[in-house]
């Protein structure tokens, strides 16, 4: 591949490395800056007097005797009870991923194995549903949920997030199942399996790579959602993202911005770990949709 003619001239190489370095800084610096600053006091985090304070932590050591402090984390997690939001997020994400994968796998498998005309229309409907901003549906939820008295609790939100997740899950799993040869389950059926037995004993053992990738994206959708969770959950059932948004309203007035900063860093950490372990799957998931779609 790298023949002599394909080698990059020096100036182009410098340009490329310079540009990529710039992009890496743009992409990563904000996170490191916020992580670093979350262990400081507000005066240091914001460059009110002198921006080098943020590096040396002068005001932090004036207040706490050391140049790092966990005051923001203590304030957010214990005083403002951010741990509740963390538990709620864990519950919501776990059930959303499990449910949407279970029903999405069945549906996606059926769509990929049925050659009838209605599968096309179902997929197009799913695409239209995917295109609609979730917030447009929220006003449709509120009235019935108030009537039935199910507003504000976690199960309602989980079901809604599962449903909003389905169009995307279906598209992704549909294209994944299409890449599994049809002969596999056809031959199982010839051997006397029912369609479900073929699915259970032949397809399930080989479907995990696609399902895990889809699960990652379902998780991200549930974890990152703000519009639905903030409208459908009551104050004490809030997940992390609406909780942080709620912090903003109160902390700007109370001068406790550092609580919000600590909460933001806490909520970003799991995503970092996720990318670290599943980088390849995320990349392959993004591109699988692109190549098929």
């Amino acid at each position: 591949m790298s023949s002599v003619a394909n080698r990059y001239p020096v100036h182009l190489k410098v340009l490329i490395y310079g540009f990529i370095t710039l992009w890496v800084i743009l992409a990563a610096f904000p996170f490191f800056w916020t992580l670093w600053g979350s262990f400081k006091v507000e005066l240091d985090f914001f460059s009110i007097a002198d921006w080098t304070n943020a590096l040396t932590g002068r005001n932090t050591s004036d207040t706490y005797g050391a140049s790092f402090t966990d005051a923001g984390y203590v304030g957010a997690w214990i005083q403002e009870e951010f741990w509740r939001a963390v538990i709620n997020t864990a519950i919501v994400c776990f059930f959303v991923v499990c449910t949407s994968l279970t029903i999405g796998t069945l549906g996606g498998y059926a769509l990929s194995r049925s050659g009838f005309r209605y599968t096309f229309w179902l997929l197009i409907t799913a695409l239209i549903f995917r295109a609609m901003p979730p917030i447009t549906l929220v006003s449709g939820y509120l009235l019935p949920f108030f009537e039935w008295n199910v507003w504000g609790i976690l199960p309602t939100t989980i079901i809604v997030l599962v449903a909003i997740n389905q169009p995307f899950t279906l598209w992704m799993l549909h294209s994944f199942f299409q890449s599994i040869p049809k002969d596999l389950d056809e031959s199982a059926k010839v051997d006397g399996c029912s369609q479900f037995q073929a699915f259970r004993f032949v397809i399930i053992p080989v479907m995990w790579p696609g399902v895990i990738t889809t699960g990652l994206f379902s998780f991200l959708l549930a974890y990152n959602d703000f519009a639905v969770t903030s409208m459908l959950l009551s104050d004490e059932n809030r997940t992390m993202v609406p909780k942080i948004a709620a912090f903003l309203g109160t902390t700007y007035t109370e001068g406790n911005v550092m609580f919000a900063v600590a909460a933001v860093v806490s909520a970003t950490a799991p995503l970092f770990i996720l990318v670290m372990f599943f980088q390849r799957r995320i990349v392959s998931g993004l591109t699988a949709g692109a190549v098929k779609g």
Partner: protein
Amino acid sequence: MKHSTFFWFFLPTGLAMLLFIAFPLVSVVLQSVHTPHEAVLVEVENCGPFGCKKVTTIDQDATRELRNSEPLGKFVGLDIYFDRGHLAITEVKTAWITSESWSGFFNKLGNLPFYRAIAFTLTFTFTVTPILIILGLTIALGVNALSERVKGLVIFVSLLPMIVTPLIGSLILFWMIDSRGILGTAIQWLAADPDLSLKASTGLTWLMLIIYGVWHSAPFAFVVFYAGLQTLPMDQIESARIDGASRWEQVRYVIVPHLMPLIMFVALIQLMDNFRVFEPIVGFNAEAHAQSLSWIIFNDLGGETRQLSAAATSSMLTIFGVAILLSPVLWRTWQDFKGKS
């Protein structure tokens, strides 16, 4: 697969989408043509020691009964669509008649909340999408030229802005670009204007949101294009080079056409996603200068009042906008489908 088997396999997911996407959609349509009942007023004559007075009071029982019997409210047709908070037909008409020039007309439109939101949403969608495609393509070409050892690290770092929760990502940038944050201070120093604040001007706020949008979505374009670059037809590149094509010409006439389907895909996904721009407005605390369609819906729904009808109408108009945006794609898919069968 038999129809009945398909039905049972598809039932759970179909039911979920029917109950929680299709039915709410119907409910949104219904709400958008209804308005909550006004309170039932009764005129009571209050007679005291100083004569009789006619007092209008709210008949609580009757009001409650009316609201319970018809929870949707009163049917008003398309009135909400045309009111001042939405399409504002009368205001637009007056603006059209009274203004002499186009700019005057658009200025008056800018005072109407819904048109302001449309202006921002469209500006955001149609500036962010092309910029992020170009940036993503440049990064992909750059990373493709890197040595294998650093590629993995660069891809890891590049994924971060995309994977991070939009609200959190915008907060992180907002704290830096705030007039007290490190970037904000740097900009003040560069512009030699200690009072410069990005939040204070509409133009700069829009610019800030657009930069955030590009930062957030460019990684997606990058990853897709990078994968596309791995399947480049090397013989075509080779023959282009033998024919004397410069590097730029190779990119322009071989690589970009090869990636064209992917570029269309990214454009489609990003048009849909950028059209729903919402979280950055909350994160950047930018409501005063920039409102999007999603933000208007959110704003109507929130707070004590919960104006469901107004929100439902905004939702319908937003869905209508998405439909227009999506129609070329749907049309092409339909053509493909007809061609196939």
